[in-house]
């Protein structure tokens, strides 16, 4: 008898694979206008997102290599949502690009890799998912084939990600050598904190820190974000980071439980350095994408504090924050990508007097920046509050005070942008931009998301009910 279980448990991955095949056939078939293809893809992504919510079932496949439950399905839905928003926002950029199908094939492949990585219950599966998600992204970073900066960014991304995965692999090999297995659940039983295992853990966490761009390993971030097309930058800063963070929590909370004290220290040090350096570098940026790159580095620092709480609240506050981060960061990237696609300008100083000509976009950007900074009525405030509370559960208040002080520093650079939009005089402001309807809808979704996720406690309660602790 045919076993239908596999179809239900793997449905999100299979849906993406199906989409990739459909896109290949569209590419081979007769010429269609870009707009019709884009509308079709956006519809398909919307259906994909809706279908993701339909049912969730706990179980494992392939001898525990792939496992799924309500929490994992929800995390995948978050990533689907982010891809849907990015796709709608890049409408203006892709409308005139003859290679748009390749862009979607690359991003879908990468997303599928992330899905496998999140679901992995085995180090081999985890490694395959990780590589499947990073290699297509390097190709996507080079999407503006003729731009010098784009190829430089792709070169930096592929070299640093290959280097980081080599380090990660060395860690995995030592872990295998000391435990004799690759399955997560069996590894836990064999971890006793001997020096070789600690070394393996440090190597693993360095590989992760590369992917989430925590500070000693952040040097590639700003360059890659600046050089890549805005849609790819948004993908890198939101989706790829979120997927790696979900996996990191899974590994730390489920596999490395016997050495929880060690990784708590590692996370706290990483978080403190990450917040500080991210903030200091964000202060001096003029390019908007570089600015958002350093701001996203600082945000990762806050996320690490939440994770270090190692409780159910730690896991729940991470997912809640990622949800808010998707809305607020994508709203900011949406405005930047609109301005970049229509005028080619990407500097913060170009936004002087932006409010006079584009009030709608200005408000979207302002709400997004307020949420990123954590100003109370927006969701960003609650996200950071829950992260801090989860971190404070360990009783180490020094790091919480340090992070709170750094939030004040971050207000300066976020509000500086808001000031330049509303107050600074400019004789030649950007002209009025014709925003496509699809992108407008995406921005409204983001703004509504920023406000509603903050005010409706249902969201956090739902995430909390799904989460697990140490």
């Amino acid at each position, binding site marked *: 008898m045919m076993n239908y279980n596999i179809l239900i448990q793997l449905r999100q991955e299979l849906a993406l694979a199906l989409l990739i095949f459909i896109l290949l056939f569209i590419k081979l078939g007769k010429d269609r206008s870009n707009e019709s293809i884009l509308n079709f893809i956006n519809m398909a992504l919307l259906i994909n997102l809706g279908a993701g919510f339909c049912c969730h079932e706990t179980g494992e496949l392939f001898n525990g290599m792939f496992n799924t439950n309500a929490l994992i399905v929800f995390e995948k839905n978050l990533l689907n949502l982010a891809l849907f928003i990015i796709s709608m926002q890049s409408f203006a950029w892709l409308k005139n690009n003859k290679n748009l199908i390749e862009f979607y094939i690359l991003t879908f492949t990468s997303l599928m890799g992330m899905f496998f990585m999140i679901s992995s219950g085995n*180090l*081999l599966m985890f*490694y*395959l998912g990780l*590589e499947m998600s990073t*290699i297509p992204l*390097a*190709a996507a970073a*080079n999407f503006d*084939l*003729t*731009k*010098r*900066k784009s*190829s*430089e*960014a*792709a*070169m930096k991304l*592929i*070299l640093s990600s*290959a*280097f980081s995965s*080599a380090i990660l*692999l*060395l860690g*995995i*090999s*030592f872990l*295998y*050598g000391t435990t*004799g*297995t*690759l399955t997560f659940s069996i590894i836990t039983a064999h971890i006793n904190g001997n020096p070789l295992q600690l070394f393996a853990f440090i190597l693993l966490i360095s590989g992760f820190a590369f992917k989430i761009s925590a500070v000693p390993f952040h040097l590639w971030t*700003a*360059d890659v974000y*600046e*050089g890549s097309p805005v849609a790819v930058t948004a993908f890198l800063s939101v989706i790829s980071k979120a997927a790696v963070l979900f996996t990191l929590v899974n590994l730390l909370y489920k596999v490395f439980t016997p050495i929880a004290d060690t990784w708590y220290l590692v996370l706290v040090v990483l978080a403190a350095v990450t917040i500080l350096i991210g903030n200091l*570098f964000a202060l*001096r940026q003029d390019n908007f994408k570089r600015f958002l790159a350093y701001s996203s580095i600082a945000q990762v620092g806050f996320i690490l504090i939440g994770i270090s709480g190692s409780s159910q609240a730690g896991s729940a506050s991470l997912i809640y924050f990622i949800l808010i981060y998707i809305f607020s960061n994508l709203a900011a990237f949406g405005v930047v990508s609109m301005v970049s696609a229509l005028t080619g300008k990407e500097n913060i100083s170009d936004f002087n007097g932006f409010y006079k000509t584009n009030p709608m976009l200005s408000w979207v950007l302002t709400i997004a920046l307020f949420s990123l900074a954590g100003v109370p009525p927006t969701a960003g405030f609650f996200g950071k509050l829950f992260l801090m509370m989860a971190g404070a559960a360990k009783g180490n208040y020094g790091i919480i005070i340090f992070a709170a002080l750094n939030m004040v520093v971050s207000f300066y650079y976020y509000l500086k942008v808001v000031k330049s939009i509303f107050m600074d005089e400019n004789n030649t402001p950007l002209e009025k931009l014709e925003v496509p309807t699809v992108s407008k809808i995406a921005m409204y979704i983001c703004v509504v998301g920023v406000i509603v996720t903050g005010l409706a406690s249902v969201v956090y309660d739902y995430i909390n009910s799904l989460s697990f602790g140490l």
Partner: protein
Amino acid sequence: MQEIPLTQILFVSTALFFIGMYGLFTRRNLITMLMSIELMLNSVNINFVAFNKYLFPDNLDGIFFTLFIITIAAAEAAVAIAIIINLYRSHNSIDVDDASEMKY
């Protein structure tokens, strides 16, 4: 016949890994840097095979992992070389120092 102890094999693989890392940090030619990364991946392969053979000969997890690493390294090299070719078209050079427009 006397068997080579595991520690000596681990010594070789660790040395290989750090030779690769040294090459990555000192060489300025992109193809050579790519080769250095391959060296690092191969040292991991040696690790896996050695652990599998000496410590856990009952199952083949390590050997299979090696096969996947080789495959993925090939995919990575393919994308990296495509990117380097495109970089050469715009910069007329495959020296990393020439591709340093974006800083700080």
